[in-house]
């Protein structure tokens, strides 16, 4: 049986504001779900609920049938769901290698020195950060910091990754290179992923399915091709962009 990450009717209110209003989703291991929607539609909140960073007001999150929505975030990671931060949060005082080592040690629970070293080396090679392994994390470029977030999430050994705008703020060439890396790594490791993204081209090229949020509700779900043609989506989100697109 393939592993599944599943959210059921998740509601999240902050005071009087309803950020998520009954969102459900399901991702199986090996599949990539794109999560798109206008600003403030609840994408990041949903990732925070899935990762255990915040607790839903109601609704549940399951990993392989086990409820994880009441678990503290660090246990969700150990259970197999890791998140990257929209604004990278590297451990500044550590080298790139040490950053990834922390994830392999605590997230994946590797204890033996040699195994940790092998795993860290493998992850750094996968995300092409190996040449920068012994540089302090504070000295990295934005693109490299995003790679480091990705590398740390991988090193936790998670079966599901929640990736918050890992392509945002990059130049077009960097986006292309990062998409390339993501697809290769995903194909090789076969993790499941929920990818929140503003860069449309990136979502459409990495996601197998796409879920569209608007004001905390899901308004469409389907393959990237279906979703971009959905009139509700075009109106809510792609409006201007689709109108301008030379189709």
């Amino acid at each position, binding site marked *: 049986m393939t592993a599944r990450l599943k959210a059921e009717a998740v509601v999240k209110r902050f005071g009087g504001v309803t950020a998520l209003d009954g969102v459900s989703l399901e991702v199986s291991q090996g599949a990539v779900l794109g999560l798109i929607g206008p600003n403030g539609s609840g994408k990041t909140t949903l990732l925070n609920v899935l990762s255990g*960073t915040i607790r839903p007001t109601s609704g549940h999150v399951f990993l392989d049938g086990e409820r994880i929505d009441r678990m*503290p975030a660090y246990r969700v*990671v150990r259970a197999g769901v890791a998140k990257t931060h929209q604004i990278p949060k*590297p451990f500044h005082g550590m080298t790139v290698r040490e950053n990834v080592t922390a994830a392999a040690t605590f*997230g994946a629970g590797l204890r033996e020195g040699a195994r940790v070293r092998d795993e860290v080396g493998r992850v750094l090679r996968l995300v092409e950060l190996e040449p920068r392994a012994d540089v302090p994390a504070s000295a990295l470029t934005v693109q490299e910091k995003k790679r480091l977030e990705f590398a740390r999430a991988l090193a936790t050994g998670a079966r599901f990754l929640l990736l918050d705008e890992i392509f945002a703020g990059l130049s077009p060439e960097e986006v292309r290179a990062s998409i390339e890396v993501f697809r290769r790594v995903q194909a090789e490791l076969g993790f499941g992923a929920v990818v929140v993204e503003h860069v449309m081209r990136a979502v459409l090229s990495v996601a197998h399915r796409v879920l569209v949020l608007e004001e905390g509700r899901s308004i469409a779900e389907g393959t990237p091709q279906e979703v971009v043609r959905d009139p509700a989506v075009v109106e809510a989100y792609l409006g201007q962009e689709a109108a301008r697109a030379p189709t």
Partner: protein
Amino acid sequence: MRIIGSVWFRFREMRLRTLPSTLWKGWRSLGPTAQGLGIVLAVLGGLGPVLPVALFVFLILFMIYAAWAYSINLITGMTGYVSFGHVVFAGAGAYALAYGVTAWGIHPLAGVVAAGLTGALLALGVGVVTLRLRGAYFAIATLVTALAAVYIVSGTPALGDGSGIRFYLGFQIGTQYYAIWTLLASEIALTWWVTRGRIGLGLRALRDDEDAARAVGINVPRLKLFLYVLSGGFAGAAGSVFTWFNSSAFPDAFQLAYSLDMLAMIIIGGMGTLSGPWIGAVVVNVPRQTLLKLLPQGQPIVIGLLVILIALFLPGGIVGIIRKYIPEARRYLE
């Protein structure tokens, strides 16, 4: 029998050959800073029998301060959580010993142990609540515990109301000296231990970015609480030696000034480092016991100014600044 005999012989041979080299390897793996501190501690320990009383007094007070510095270093230095309430643990330890020796007639060494447990338990209780708060909120919450403690102790009849507890146990300066020496040595060993390996890695992660630390699977609440409890325990034990040394515990054992001194020592010396608290204790406590005795009112001003100057111009304290500008020293000074 011959087989057993030859096995035993080989075993002894092996031990004889490897024991010195194992010890040597262990010593080398401590690193220069721990070796240096170890030598200083060994000298202090060895001097015990031949010290004149005046020096005993000086060194006991110095080691009490150093023990406090290492204790607050465990939480504030290692995690960045600024604890203004550390005096609560020290004061509680002081009263635990005073109460134990007067009400139950226990040996003062048992009092020190009880004081350590009291400090640790109190830190557990306070920590469970306050460590959920971050940054300034944690600092304020701990400040409140310090202010509240004075009133609670002053209003408790069993603790002598506001007039404190006095006791006289005779001349025990040597025992006091080795008690605080043992505490200090244990703290230094503990500090060395938590900066290494798995815990050390988790701590550095926690200090850099707590959210990211959670996101890579570190049990952040437990790690913080673990350090806070150890920290409270040692602060309490050191506080009890102070009280034992003074033969009395008064509510002013809860004076905020003690918390500020503890913070001053690690800010000046270098937060979260192995040698910083020691250096801070030398800078804060030695002048206090010598030069600054001439102007008692001036002490807080001089120390306060020093803290402000260091916080402004030398973040990282004395150890931090040496490590920054003399890269060669990094290997030798942790």
